[in-house]
């Protein structure tokens, strides 16, 4: 399979990359891990005049933990395989599990966390957890930078709030409050190289070790054009003592009120809805046992 011709650019700073993108706008695409871009180039889905490599920009491949600010900044070009082994990821069980489920070991050695997000696939693994953790995306351009909540980052299938001249440079994760637990479940028919049929990320925070729930976030993937918050389910949980009864009630609501799956060759809408219920309940139980 041949790749169409393009002009190749390899900036070594974020500033340089922003300048290139400002110059070429939608005539340029970024190349990070290549597990999506190269595939789409070969399939003829995309044929940009310019390809801007983001793999030699130190600011985008490094991470920094800032305890004073209570945040961790993850470079968007960081390899998934590398991030899985980072110590700072340990409290973020949902995100860690999500990253461990991307592609295969070979794909994880190439793919980047930024790439998993900007492609805006409804079934992407990293996105639901990032939304559940209230993470933010850092977008840079020649005119400066802005931070966008991951909750507002996705606009539609393959569409994000990124402008033609912007780069997703980093993701900000905030330190989790005490007594917070989280979990992510990816459901597909194979264990490797699989696209989620449904996936669910859940994060719950308790007031004290035995409850009640003060904050809850449930985000479902592959049941709508963008990862969806199960808002009615979250509402049911807040203020309640955690347990099987309230988890089942929330899961039922997530499936019937919050998800909007479609039929496709991977599964029917009805089946997906049933799976939302099962997975949400399980994810909540796992999040409860993950409380730290």
């Amino acid at each position, binding site marked *: *399979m041949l790749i169409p011709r393009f002009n190749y650019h390899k900036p070594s700073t974020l500033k340089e990359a922003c300048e290139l993108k400002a110059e070429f706008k939608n005539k340029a695409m970024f190349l990070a891990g290549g597990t999506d871009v*190269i595939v789409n180039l070969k399939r003829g889905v995309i044929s940009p005049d310019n390809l801007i490599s983001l793999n030699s920009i130190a600011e985008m491949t490094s991470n920094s933990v800032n305890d004073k600010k209570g945040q961790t900044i993850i470079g968007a070009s960081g390899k998934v395989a590398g991030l899985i082994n980072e110590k700072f990821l340990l409290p973020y069980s949902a995100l860690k599990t999500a990253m461990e489920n991307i592609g295969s*070991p070979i794909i994880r050695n190439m793919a980047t966390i930024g790439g998993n997000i900007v492609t805006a696939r409804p079934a992407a693994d990293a996105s639901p957890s990032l939304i559940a953790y209230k993470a933010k995306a850092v977008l840079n351009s020649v005119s400066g930078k802005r931070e966008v909540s991951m909750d507002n980052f996705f606009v539609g299938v393959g569409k994000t709030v990124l402008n033609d001249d912007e780069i997703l440079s980093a993701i900000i994760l905030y330190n989790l409050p005490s007594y917070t637990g989280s979990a992510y479940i990816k459901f597909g028919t194979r264990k490797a190289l699989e696209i989620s049929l449904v996936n669910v990320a859940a994060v719950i925070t308790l007031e004290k070790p035995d409850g009640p729930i003060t904050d809850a976030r449930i985000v479902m993937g592959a049941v709508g054009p963008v990862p969806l918050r199960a808002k009615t389910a979250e509402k049911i949980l807040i203020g309640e003592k955690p347990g099987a009864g309230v988890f089942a009630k929330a899961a039922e609501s997530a499936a019937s009120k919050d998800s909007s799956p479609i039929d496709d060759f991977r599964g029917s809408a009805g089946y997906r809805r049933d799976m939302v219920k099962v997975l949400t309940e399980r994810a909540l139980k796992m999040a409860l046992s993950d409380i730290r």
Partner: protein
Amino acid sequence: MKRLINITVNQKKYELAVDPNMTLADMIRVELKLTGTKKGCGLGECGACTVILDGKTVSSCLVLAVEADNRDVITIEGIETEKGLHPVQQAFVEKGAIQCGFCTPGMVLSAKTLLDENPHPDEQDIRKAISGNLCRCTGYQKIVEAVQSVSARK
């Protein structure tokens, strides 16, 4: 316009002029004539084109040759030692882990990388490590046994 890259393949340094749209897999097979690296799906799904790039396994069909500038590549041809086949290769032969052989180069490199990082993996570790390499002949059992036998000898 071609670009000049410096690349180390199997401990040999090369200076090559490559088109930006040439993949690392094509560079290895066409320019360097190292045809042990196989091209299967071309989309990063089968693992036949696996090579080791800076110590990590990658699908060389999804890496542009220009992106491998100043980097270190090991292909299946690069793991033999002066004593003969690499222990993983030898184990594949002895355990009958090769049938048609198309997945074998990638499979061997994934197994070698696993054993370099974890000399005594359990069965699940092995199955996980080769989960990006598809084999349509063996059913994987003999491959897992081959990797286990190398681990037992260490």
